[in-house]
Every structure is written in C-alpha cells, then in structure tokens.
C-alpha cells in the first residue's frame, strides 16, 4: 500500500529539498495526511520542486508536476518521501 510504506531513516523527504531542487515522490508515510496530499496531486512518481520558503522557514511552497503550487508546513512536507 503506497500510503503506508515503511519509513527508513536514510530516506530524504520533501522537507530536505534545497530551494529550487526537484525530487520525485516515492511514497507518503502518514496514512491520514496522505489522503489529502493524494487528492491535491502528490501521487507517487510525481516530480515536485521546492519553490519557496516563508520568511520564518515554514511553511514552504511546492511546485507540483510543473503545473501548480501548493503551500504546506515543514511537518507536512516531512511525510512526503522522495525516491533516491
């Protein structure tokens, strides 16, 4: 089940992206949060770019699939794991 993949400590998440860096979503490790993220288009395999950070470091903006921008908190971004 993609929504409940086992978290590994070495895996990077969207939270670890540098500004302007792009990654590919591998899985979402929080089942409840995942439902919202999936609806908003954060599907495993989608490419996301960290496009902005609020002045105080949180929340961040994420450009999804080159199409639209989401705004989310760092704690929420931490549940979106990236492919190596």
């Amino acid at each position: 089940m993609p929504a409940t993949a086992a978290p590994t400590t070495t895996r990077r998440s969207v939270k670890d992206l540098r500004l302007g860096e792009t990654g590919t979503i591998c899985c979402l490790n929080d089942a409840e949060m995942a439902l919202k993220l999936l609806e908003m288009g954060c599907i495993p395999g989608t490419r996301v770019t960290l496009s902005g950070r609020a002045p105080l470091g949180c929340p961040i903006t994420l450009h999804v699939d080159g199409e639209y921008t989401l705004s989310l908190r760092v704690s929420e971004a931490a549940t979106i794991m990236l492919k190596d």
Partner: protein
Amino acid sequence: MARAAVIEKPQTLGQEVTTGNATGRHTRIALIGNPNSGKSSLFNQLTGLNQKVGNFPGVTVDRKTGSAQLTPQHRADIIDLPGTYSLYPKSLDEKVITDLLYDQAASEYPDFVVVTADASNLKRNLLLFTQLADLQLPMVLALNMMDTAEQHGIQIDVEELQRQLGVPIIPMNARKGVGVTALKIVMAQELGPPTQTFYEPTEELLPMIRQIRYYFNLHNDYLALHYAHQGDRLRFLSADDRAYLAELREKYHFDSIALQAQETIDRYARISELLLDVVRVTRAERNESTSNKLDRVLTHKVWGYLIFLSILFLLFQAIFSWAAYPMDLIDQGVAWLGGQVKNLGKGPLIDLLSDGIIAGLGGVLMFIPQIALLFAFIAVLEESGYMARVTFLMDKIMRKFGLNGKSVVPLISGMACAVPAIMSTRTIESWKDRIITIFVVPLMSCSARIPVYTVLVALVVPDEKVLGIFNLQGVVLMGLYLLGFVSAVLSAWALKTLLRAKERSFFIMEFPVYRWPRWKNVGLTIVEKVKAFVFQAGKVIVAISVLLWVLASYGPGTALDRATQQAQTEAARQQLTPEQTENLVASYKLENSYAGVFGRSIEPVVRPLGFDWKVSIALLTSFAAREVFVGTMSTIYSVGQDADMSTVQDKLRAEKDEHGQPFFTPARAASLLVFYVFAMQCVSTLATTYRETKGWTWPVLQLVYMSGLAYVLSLLTYQLLK
C-alpha cells in the same frame, strides 16, 4: 491534435441530447468544481444579480443560489456548491456536497451538474470530474481558463477530450464571459449521464456493494461504495442505516483509508493516460515566473510584511477618509427627510416616523459606504490570490499564539463582521485551532463598531494631519483596530495554554497564481454583503430604534405628566423663554420615561467607567447589535434636545454634565471606546458561535470573557485619564 478552432464552438458528442423543454420549466442545476477553478466567476456570469445567500439545512454553510435565463423560454435554478478537490469531504463545507448529491430523495437533488475545471491544471481538476462521472450524474464540463492554458503553452484537443470523457465540454473563459452563451445552450438541453466510467471497485468489494445497493435501492455501484465510506457522515441517513453500514464494513473488513488512497492513485493513473492523447505542452518552460517574481517581493522577509502592513493601513485610511464623503451625504439626506416629515405636522405618529423610523434607518444607511469599501478590499485581496500569501507569511507567527495561518483570513474578515468570519473558520481542519479562532474573532473590530468609533473619535480627536500626510483620526482608528487585534492574539495565546487537546492541525492548501481581480465579482460581493447588512442587521436596528422611541416617549403611570408639570413650574420660576421651556420639558420627560428609569437602574454599575444613564441606555440596547449605539444616542438626544441639531456628533458635543462642562471629555470617550473594543455586544455573533460549536459553552464563555475584559479595561482607562 490541438486545434484552436475547436475551442471556439461547443460540441455535443456521445450524448443522447434532446432539445425542447416544456415552456417555463425550471431545471435544477448544481455548480461544482475545484477551488480556484473559476466556479464563482461562472456562477456570477450565469446569474448576475439574481442571487440569494441562505443556509444549507442544519448547517451554517453559505448556500448560494441564483436563477439563470438559459434561453428565452427556459429558466434554471442554479446552486453554487463549495469548492472541493474530491467527493471525500475533508471539511464541513465539503460535506454539504455529499449530503446533496447522495440523497436522491432530496427535494434539492439537481437535474444535472455543471463541473468547472481549470484547463491550465487539467489533471488535478479531472479527479473530481471522474468521481462525479462515476456517479452517473448527467453533466457538462465547463473547461475554464482556456486563455491561461494557452499562455502556458498548453494545447487541448477538446474534441478528443470530449470523446474520452463522454460528456459535452464547453471551452470557456468565465472571467471574461467567453463561452457562457454556448454553455447556456447546452444547459438548456436534456443531458444524459456520461458514457464513460473511470474507476471500477475491486472484485472483493462487489458483494458488499450489492448488499448496499439492494438495501438503499441505489442505481450505481460507485454511489454504494461511497455509502460504505461515508455512511457515518451522511446527514440524511438514520441511525439504523448507519448501524447497518457499520456492520457491513466490519463484516467485509473494509479499510476506508487504504481504499480511498488506492482509488485516488488509480484515478490519477487513468487520467494521465487519457490526457496523453489530449494535451500537448508546446513551450517547455512556462511563464509561471510572473507569479514567482511577484512572490519574491510579496513574501519577502522584510518587504512582504511591510507591504502587508501598508495594505492594512491603506484599508483604514480608506474606511475613515474616503468613506466620509458619501456618509455625510447620506447623513444629511436622512436629516433633511426627518425635517420634512416634522414639517408635516405634530403628533405621536409624526414623531414615531421622524425620530423613530427615519432616525433608525439613517443609522443603518450611513454605514453602507464603509462596509462596501471594506468588503471591496477583502474581495480584491481574495480574488487576486494575495490572501493565500498572507496566510503563508503569517502561519508560523500565528502558530506561536495557538492560531493557524488559516486564522488570518477569519481574523481579517472579522474586521468586516464576526458572523461570516466565524463561519469562514470551517476551512481550519484542526478542532483546537478552529475553536481558538472562533473565540477570539469577535475581538477584532468589526464594521459595526465603526459607527461608534467614528462618532467618538471625531468628537475628541482633532481633525489634523500627522507627518503631513496621515489623518490623525485615521491613525487613532488604526490604533483601535490594533488594540482589538493584539487582544485577540493574546487571548488566543492564553486559550492555547488552557486547552490541551493534542491533535494535529493540517495546513496544506493550493497557492493560486496572481490574477487581476474581476470587478464584476468584486462588485457582486459588495452588493451581497451590503444587502446582508441592510436586511439582517438593519431589521434589528430599525426595530430597536422604534422600541427605543416608545420607551423614551412613554413612562410608568402618570410620571410623564408630573414631570411636565414640574418642568413647567421650574421654567416659570427661572423665567425661561418658550423654547428653553420646551427643552427642559423634553429632558424632564425623558428622565422619567421607561428608558430613563431603565438607564438609571444600571447607572451605578457603569458610573465608575464614566458613563451616565443616557450612555447606559445605549450600552444596553447595544447588546442586540453594537451599531445600535449611534441610533440610540441620536434617538435619546433628538428627543431631549433642540431639533435643529441634525447630526449625532453635534448632539453629543453639546451634551453637558451637571457642572455645565462638555460631558464627552477625552477620558469618557476613551473609556467608551475601550468598552466597545472589548465588549461582546452582538446577539448574531453569539448565535453563530452556538451553531458552529454546537453548544452553549463557547458562546457563554465568549460573552463572560469579553464583557468582563471590557468592564475592567474601561474602568482602568477612565480612572487613569480622569
């Protein structure tokens, strides 16, 4: 592939389309789509000024309905549903949609739905579309924002998309009205259900789905699946029905969360596949950079906050200075009308009309310019996409105080009116954040306080410029708003430490691209809000004005006659002129009227705050609604004062204390202002809090807390400044 010509004309393909409805038939149409997909623009284009705002049964979600003339013979009732990303509701707002669409027996059940989708963001917008299609609802897809898609180099083969989706598609640009006529023509026809399905429930779910279909007599597998997912949350199901669904879920080991996640993933896969033949992106690098460039400034760590503060400052200057001109006109117009009526003759009816009804109406009409300006600002900020940036800038700061970036919009709306502001907290998913926001929103200075502020500030603060440009009264007004804001934030922080619910709060939301606001949308928002103020608040205000006039004109037993005699004796002793005698009689009469008795009975309680019995009456009537204060003051003084003084301010300025000094000293005015900043004096707000929190705990706490705060702080203000 992409052909620009295709975009222009509507196609009806793969549908059994039959024209010709009986004349005068009313079709019920629901409008549904993602947030930011141009749904409101389309609704405004279709209905214009024929809109009504009500409530959905049992909940306070705004229910916008309107009627549209589709063809000369065919009118349709259109209901605008809240924006949503899917049919699995994540908020109270979105729940309204499932309650409406899943209950085929409902009287409101639509004949068909119009789905709006943002063409520049088609993949995500089609998720909701495919869910609706699988419910086999007759529908048409309004493919909106074709111009934006084109600018982004996205070309859509509409004919092919229509074939793939199995419903009529109208390419359009709702903001500019392009495609609306074509859409109306399709909407006037009888639409069939979509010819395509997009998701099949898995094999092992079928036995359960069959049972649900049989039990509830449903025509559709996907609808039955949603009953299984959402049975507990569908308002129209009975307790027995819910128990039955719970039993089935247990029996078939139904894992709702995992199934939902898998469904969404499967749908996206299907959508990506079908879009391969439909969408072609010609320019690889799209001009999303305009928005990004703007964001670099508007969400900058220094400029971002400075710009936000400047916008707020501009807002207050606008409300205070620009609105003054139309307000003066309205004020003078009402005074003139009252004078004309008085010239008609004498008698209780004439008095009731001029001092009761017309004075009360004046109190309502006078504040239309300010309310219109405020909502114009809020509408422009929302429409342009800037409000999402404010949320983004403020989230971390707000969280420190137990609030949420999403609390900023309710707090800012609270400056217009706490009632819609409290309703708008429904976008906050976390219960604790939401309760805290609801609790502190009424501390934000709402437009109903503007009248009180305006009158009192102008009374004691000189109309001067500071630093050459800023109006001093405007600066003081902003100070009052800041006082409200600071107290809201500090109260939130206090509540955060008291409420210990450990629960997660979600923030994720779409960051819309910047857009020029459509003035038509802004205009319709203004009309809607002003109408709500005039007809809802206005009714209360006029009613209370009339009640007050009665209370001020009649007294217990023969008290008034005795007061008249006393006054005449006193006047004769002092050898007053007939005019002075009349004033003295009026003032004696008011003192002995029901209103006077009432005011005097609570005077001891408010005397330490610097208020007399006249102010007491205004405080009491303000508990129905704050804006009544000014109407009350004008009624009280117009009954007891010289009729030539037409404006409220002049009346207040002329008021003398027992030593013959002006009654409204800076200390008294400041104390009264502080009282109005903090006191919970709004029955509508309490009622809204009750509905939104489903109980009396929070409204009662709000009332006690805010009134207590108001009393203590007013007391301190008066005693320190006296």
